[in-house]
């Protein structure tokens, strides 16, 4: 569990761009064998939600937000040696950000949580053209495709991405999530069959465990 004072120290360092201080806090938590899912939800996800909220309320700049995100992505590397060592269950997922979506850390954390649960979680990355995404899905043949959306105005791009997947893989299970949906767009998503909205990493785990 991440204690409040640890979270506060981490968030302050993150907002100030003190990468090494953030790194030490995460490394100390890993050295005490914190559960990776707790690290993700109680430190990474919580702090990034806070950073997003501060940005939306004009309390921090775009540069602050991007630096905090870049630091977080860098810190995920500390977790990977143990994350990818978990036993496999023979399922594959491809997680993508749609075209025009430059915020990728949320999608990457989703792919990581899938890895943690034994899936092979392939992450495509930010601003990926839909054609490239379809080809990647064709090559990988996943059991599940996930989309992450951070900016509400990119919802049309997400719809196009879903349409591309639905055309080529009509029965593919789809997950969508991301901070963009706090501002609406869920009605659009619900119109698609086999498509589930996931609001948090904890909820993602529950969904994949119950099948």
């Amino acid at each position: 569990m991440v204690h409040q004072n640890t979270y506060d120290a981490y968030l302050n360092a993150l907002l100030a761009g003190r990468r090494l201080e953030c790194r030490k806090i995460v490394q100390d938590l890993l050295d005490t064998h914190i559960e990776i899912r707790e690290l993700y939800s109680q430190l990474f996800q919580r702090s990034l939600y806070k950073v997003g909220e501060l940005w939306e309320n004009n309390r921090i700049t775009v540069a602050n937000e991007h630096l905090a995100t870049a630091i977080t992505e860098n810190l995920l590397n500390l977790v990977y040696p143990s994350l990818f060592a978990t036993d496999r269950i023979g399922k594959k997922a491809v997680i993508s950000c749609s075209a025009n979506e430059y915020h990728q850390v949320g999608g990457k954390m989703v792919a990581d949580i899938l890895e943690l649960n034994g899936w092979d979680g392939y992450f495509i990355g930010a601003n990926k053209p839909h054609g490239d995404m379809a080809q990647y899905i064709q090559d990988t043949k996943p059991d599940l495709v996930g989309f992450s959306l951070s900016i509400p105005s990119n919802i049309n791009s997400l719809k196009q991405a879903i349409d591309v997947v639905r055309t080529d893989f009509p029965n593919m299970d789809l997950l969508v999530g991301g901070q963009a949906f706090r501002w609406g767009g869920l009605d659009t998503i619900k119109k698609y069959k086999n498509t589930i909205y996931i609001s948090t990493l904890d909820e993602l785990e529950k969904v994949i465990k119950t099948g």
Partner: protein
Amino acid sequence: MLFFILSLEGEIVSTNRYAKEVTRRHLTGQSFYDVMLDFSGEFNLVTALNDPSTERIIHIGVEGGTPQTFYFTFEQNDDCILAFGKLNADELETLRQEILSLNQEQSNLMRKLHQTNARLKRLNEEKNRFLGMAAHDLRKPIGLVLAYTDFLIDEAKNILNKEHMGF
């Protein structure tokens, strides 16, 4: 924006606070030529004053950090020189976007590297397990073949020809 007041000889008389923050050093009394990085030695204040509308790229040395580039103009005002150094916002935005993209690509590659490494480690363990089992399972039949071969050589060498013995 950086702002310097210089003597006509180029000595720094005064600066704004941002100039001190950027350079991280005390500037008053120093020569402007010592604050900037002019590797070719081509910059000349007199030339700059003759063409005050032209922006000149000048790299400012930062104590304990990397130099920063500003676009400077110089104007003479009575017995002093006013120097204004601007950052290029478009240039910085391009730089920020590119660094962001590079960081994302590097981060994704690092993830893929760890993922592939874990897969290879797992495959290597499986290969070792298979070879261990194969070695164990093959030991007995190969031992039998060897024993029968020795038996044949000992007992039937008189009826085996040279070609048979070659096996």
